[in-house]
């Protein structure tokens, strides 16, 4: 396939089909509508099922049912809609049901705005749902990378029996870039002997459930989940470094903001200020290892986000007091420009 110019949202939708998605359930919300619209148009031709739900609550529970019955379902939404789905996400994580959930982030809190934002970092990594659970969260920074992450997400969801987040934002979703979808890599997937599909009179009934009234049972279930999360952290944590070698200051940014941070770093380089970038590609698990063995030259870290400071918590935990960690953010749907990030860096380094 040659490169095609596609909107970020549409590329995610196409990649979902290529990645083996069978069912989409969702509720309209800006700025992610191109995903359901694409699938409503394309799924009938490819044998998939598109269904518009009456609410985000219903959508995530349709995903739950479809996953429990052996489909490869997904949903997509944007920040306030994701907030409504959190009950379902806790249940999906607890019942260990594979599915993919896209969040095309917009500004909050509340109804907020339809403009891009990264103020859902907590939602995506801490959950709004109840209980001890984690969800594998991928954070693409280009349309191409989003499509690749989406293509892999459905298999990863099945391998780990977990929901998988694709954390996009209103800018990545709406922008157009050339995309070339790779051929899907074949992965061995575990047998699904736990599905609710009718026992056929051949086995005892399967039950997909999350209730565990016996504390001993529930604690063990939690410990089993934690062990799984440790396996995910060991195998799936991803990040990308840019110009970190010899850098005086290292920026940390993800998604769209990481692209802007790169531009800022290039601007600074032209002024002989050496700055680098650590770009988490997974938000959970957070790439803690990226902050171990930082170059001797590095004097401080600057986290840049389209929020009032959320990922910076994880950066501070990862840096663990070894270096100062500063923060620069814009919120409310405002996208920072490279010049203002560069100015912040110069200010921090005393070269303003």
């Amino acid at each position: 396939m040659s490169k095609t110019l596609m909107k970020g949202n549409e590329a995610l939708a196409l990649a979902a089909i290529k990645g083996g998605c069978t069912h989409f359930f969702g509720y309209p919300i800006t700025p992610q509508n191109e995903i359901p619209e694409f699938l409503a148009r394309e799924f009938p031709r490819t044998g998939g099922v598109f269904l518009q739900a009456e609410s985000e609550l219903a959508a995530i529970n349709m995903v739950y049912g479809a996953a429990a019955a052996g489909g490869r379902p997904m949903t997509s939404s944007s920040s306030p809609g994701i907030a409504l789905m959190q009950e379902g996400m806790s249940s999906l994580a607890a019942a260990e049901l594979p599915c993919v959930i896209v969040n095309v982030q917009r500004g909050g809190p509340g109804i907020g705005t339809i403009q891009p934002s990264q103020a859902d970092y907590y939602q995506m990594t801490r959950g709004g749902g109840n209980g001890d659970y984690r969800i594998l969260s991928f954070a693409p920074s280009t349309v191409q990378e989003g499509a690749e992450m989406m293509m892999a997400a459905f298999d990863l969801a099945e391998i780990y029996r977990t929901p998988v987040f694709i954390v996009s934002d209103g800018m990545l979703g709406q922008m157009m870039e050339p995309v070339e979808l790779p051929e899907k890599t074949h992965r061995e997937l575990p047998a699904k002997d736990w599905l609710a599909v009718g026992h056929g009179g051949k086995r005892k009934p399967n039950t997909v459930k999350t209730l565990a009234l016996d504390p001993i049972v529930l604690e063990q279930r939690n410990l089993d989940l934690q062990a799984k999360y440790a396996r995910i952290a060991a195998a799936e944590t991803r990040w990308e470094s840019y110009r970190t070698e010899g850098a005086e200051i290292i920026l940390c940014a993800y998604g769209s903001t990481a692209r802007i941070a790169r531009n800022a770093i290039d601007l600074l380089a032209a002024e002989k200020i050496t700055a680098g970038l650590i770009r988490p590609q997974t938000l959970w698990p957070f790439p803690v290892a990226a902050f171990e063995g930082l170059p001797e030259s590095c004097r401080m870290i600057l986290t840049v986000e389209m929020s009032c400071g959320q990922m910076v918590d994880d950066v501070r935990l990862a840096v663990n007091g070894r270096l100062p960690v500063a923060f620069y953010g814009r919120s409310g749907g405002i996208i920072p420009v490279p010049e203002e990030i560069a100015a912040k860096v110069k200010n921090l380094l005393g070269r303003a």
Partner: protein
Amino acid sequence: MTVIYARSKGLTDKDTHYCPGCTHGLIHRLVAEVLVELDLLNDAIGCASVGCSVLSYNYLNVDMIESAHGRAPAVATGVKRVHPTKPVFTYQGDGDLASIGTAEIVHVAHRGEKITTIFVNNAIYGMTGGQMAPTTLPMQKVTTAPEGRDVAHCGMPLRVSEMIAQIPGAAYVERVSVHSPKAVRQAKKAIRNGFLCQMGGFGFSLIEVLSTCPTGWGLSPVDSLQWLEDNMIPYYPLGVLRSPEEA
């Protein structure tokens, strides 16, 4: 010796956790018998709800999925869209279906999902200890309306079946009861019709079963059956509210 009454093979061997005199066990049995008689047991996929019947998956001998509070119709929708030819049902109480799950039950009917809902209405929240439900009758005493339901304060009880019956996608809606042997036989017929409606592809089917909660009501099992007949049936009249013939 001839066996004239035995446990349905649609039920597991587990003893239920239901209180003495609660009619959930009886309604489980009716669902189980219907699934066996229609030869649907092997393929059936059930969706349990939150409330006393959350553990229905321990007693019904079918694959089941536990749903979050009120969401069973959405979960069942997801299941049915993966397995359009398999029998899919929800088993929900009135707290679950008539309160927190109203959007889901309205829209499962609105879409005409080919699933069957067994709606067990005992006019109270049983599992949480006897609080007021949307179905609680006027002046009925419950823990969150200790002087009885004041309709000026919190409205008249919701008649779910009447509401669902006027949705175009609802193909079969019937309200039945289990307060007498005659009513139990009619309830089984209605459940059977619900599943036949589903398997015939007519649309959504809902069977409301008036049920007792002796513990929550503070009555003996026998008095509960009488209370149901005297108080619930006048407000929740029995009968077919919608069927494929009329649609």
